[in-house]
């Protein structure tokens, strides 16, 4: 497939496959706008679901806050102060109105602004996520390509077996194993738990980031390496690669100029999925290392029926998931000539799994 010339035209002057000129905007822009609208609608739908779900949780927040020893009068007073005695649609409208101004109210549990809790926790989760991705993406690309080239060789077989082993290990076993090795028992060089000083940036406290990052990298790496490996293998087996090979292209050029870029498409979706998981908070890592991230904050908030914090975090996560999906789809479209030049790229959320499985976008 000689798609290179098409590629540039599609991008620069916005002409689609049928030859219609779409002014000077790229042909996929309307698609992008539609996706944005759908994203906003999704977030809105999620706010309703979140609100309904928090209402459906058993127990009532006022009682949870005050504990079993509080009198009914005290609980009733607090319920009134929290506005929990108003009709549900009124509560929802109030909440939505405030949320649009980024005011999520005060945490029922600790009486500070929910936004301030979420902001700190989000910062920590983001730092961890970026670190993990910064290590995992290049590493999985290198390893995946190296294994694909040596397919079925001894190194490939041993590495794949090792990766399956890591994938099968539950995260907390990995985490505790690392603590035992590097913090308490065998080679105590790193802190066992990540007691971040909240007054400084997590990046200024790198020792606390090592074990959580390593744990997450080890648990994510197998998935991405296998994805890259499968993608590269599939491309290397494609007819056009065989044709290129027959024309005398060097293996090196073949691999890095043709195979790898095409194998990137499923990888991008895989990375997006990883990012979504990490944004949701790596709860196990946060709990085992006492790392103050978003996941454990949400977990605690649900357990405490701390509705303002639950809503702030889920809304943030929903928005981020929509954003990550959008970014991944844009990158996918840009990487895939057929989609890039189509007036209506047919990349829908449902097709993402298929992309991933197909191992190529050619």
């Amino acid at each position, binding site marked *: 497939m000689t798609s290179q010339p098409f590629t540039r035209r599609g991008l620069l002057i916005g002409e689609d496959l049928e030859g219609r000129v779409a002014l000077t905007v790229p042909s996929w822009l309307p698609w992008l706008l539609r996706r944005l609208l759908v994203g906003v609608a999704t977030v809105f739908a999620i706010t309703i679901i979140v609100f309904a779900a928090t209402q459906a949780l058993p127990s009532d927040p006022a009682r949870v806050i005050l504990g079993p*020893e509080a009198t009914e009068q005290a609980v009733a007073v607090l319920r009134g102060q929290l506005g929990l005695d108003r009709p549900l649609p009124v509560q929802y409208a109030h909440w939505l109105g405030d949320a649009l101004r980024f005011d999520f109210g005060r945490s029922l549990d600790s009486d500070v602004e929910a936004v301030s809790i979420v902001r700190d926790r989000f910062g920590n989760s983001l730092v961890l996520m970026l670190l993990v991705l910064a290590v995992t993406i290049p590493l999985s690309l290198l390893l995946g390509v190296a294994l694909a080239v040596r397919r079925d060789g001894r190194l490939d077989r041993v590495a794949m077996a090792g990766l399956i082993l890591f994938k099968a290990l539950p995260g907390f076993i990995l985490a*505790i194993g690392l603590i035992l090795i590097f913090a308490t028992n065998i080679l105590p060089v790193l802190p066992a738990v990540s007691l971040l000083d909240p007054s400084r940036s997590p990046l200024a406290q790198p020792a606390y980031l090592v074990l959580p990052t390593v744990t997450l990298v080890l648990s994510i790496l197998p998935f991405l390496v296998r994805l890259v490996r499968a993608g590269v293998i599939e491309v290397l087996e494609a007819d056009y690669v065989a044709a290129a090979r027959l024309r005398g292209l060097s293996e090196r050029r073949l691999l890095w100029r043709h195979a790898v870029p095409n194998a990137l498409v499923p990888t991008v979706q895989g990375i997006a999925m990883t990012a979504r998981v990490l944004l949701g908070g790596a709860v196990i890592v946060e709990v085992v290392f006492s790392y103050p991230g978003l996941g454990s904050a949400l977990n605690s908030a649900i357990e405490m029926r701390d509705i303002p914090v639950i809503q702030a975090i889920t809304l943030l996560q929903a928005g981020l998931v929509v954003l990550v999906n959008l970014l991944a789809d844009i990158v996918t479209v840009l990487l895939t000539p057929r989609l890039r030049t189509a007036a209506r790229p047919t990349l829908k959320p449902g097709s993402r799994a298929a992309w991933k499985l197909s191992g190529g976008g050619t």
Partner: protein
Amino acid sequence: MIELSRRHLLAAAGAGGLLALTGCGPSQDKATGPGLVPRRGGRLRLGIVDGDRSGNLDAHKPVGLGSTIRGFALYAKLWEWSPVMTPDLALAEFAEVNDDATLWTIRLKPGLEFHNGKSITADDVIFSIRRLTDPQLASPYGSLVNQIDRDNLQRLDGRTVRIPVRDGQGFIALPDTWTNFGGIVPADYHPVTNPVGAGPYKLKNPGDYVPGQRALFTRFENYFKDGKPYADELEIIEFKDQTSRIAALLSGQIDLANALLPEQVGLIKPGSGARVLVSQTNGWQSFDMNTSVAPFDDVRVRQAFRLLVDRQDLVDRALLGQGRIANDLYSPHDPTFDRSIPQRTYDPAAARRLLDEAGHGVLKVELVASPAAASAALVFAEQAKKAGVEITVRKVDNPTFTGPQRLDWGFSSGGAMGSGMLGLSWIPTGLHTDAPTSAGNKTHFRDPEFARLFTAALAQPDLEKRKALVHAAQRIQHERGGMIIWGFSNTLDGISDRVGGAEAENSHFPTWRFDKLWV
């Protein structure tokens, strides 16, 4: 599920790794670590676990255990707990109740100061108790001192306050019920923006407290006990997970870990840099029978169930031996406790006879258990099976357990662990549980004779006269009450070898005594 297996994994790994090196059991009850002479300076770090709660800094509405512990650093009270859980005078130099216990007179020590330098006066005492009992504050602990007549508090002079009890009733339990949540604070107090008290440590900047993560306190130089506290700083760090807290203790990231789980004691071994301090407390564990619903409205069923409990087996298996058996009565340390009541023993045959008399062939009951009590509930279910009683254990999460249904469970786990009534004397414990005015009477025990005796005891300052009343009331509790109090658990504190001043007590407070610990 995950938590349990993780815990077991670490226990196994720790046992495999550390035991091989030492070949010994846990170290317990050694004398204090770094010499016996207090050392000034440094930062004392306590790791706490309070479930999923973050909590606050409120002196009078400290929701959850973590908030209460932080309150012990920030706030001083008129009384403080002695190692045997009696209220000793602290900020007060004098506290006296009149003959029918309707009027308290309390005088502050001279020259007391708040963290911000303001002197502590009678007005601050009045402000503090009015704040605690303010209906708009909605403190869960306000009801404990609800009996005081908050609108008629009297300031006798700059240091003396007179506190009348409402409706001319007697209330001798004021020191016991006020001490935990009775922080004295100034009138411009605010729990978030101005958390000022007179405790051993102060909060320098509001930003030093990050809910769900940590609180960093600085030494209060003008603390009312001369020369104390010792450390420059105190850091209270919140953990969500018991296992990682132990790892932090063993790796030296924290100095103290309060209230360890019994199954984790084995991880702290000699040479590991820390020890386990065992304190025998009067924090009881129970199964509570709702006497207002079948089958527990029949006293014979209640008596039968109390005979179905193999108490020693429960202590051995549910508490892993870290406790002692109980006799369906709380507060054995109270001077009014009736020690002549015989210990009830496990007797499934006698229980069967009582159940047959009550007309129950095969009896099926659901036992609702909080997460912490689930294993004890399962052990009990197994014991009861031998007398043909089928107990289904339903484990629910804490918010559900303590939620709107909490007083309606037919049969549920109970106890003082992790609550404000841990180790209190008999009368204040009753006020939390089965007394006529209790807000948390899960047993719905409404025996008129018991109510009369309890109310009379509450108004009787004379110990000998009160003893007779309490003895009679305890006989009723023991004979027909609704609580199966099967054991008292030990408090197990992890103490780093760097820490001095930590001593075993008959309380859960050894790691909370921030004024006497040093690093």
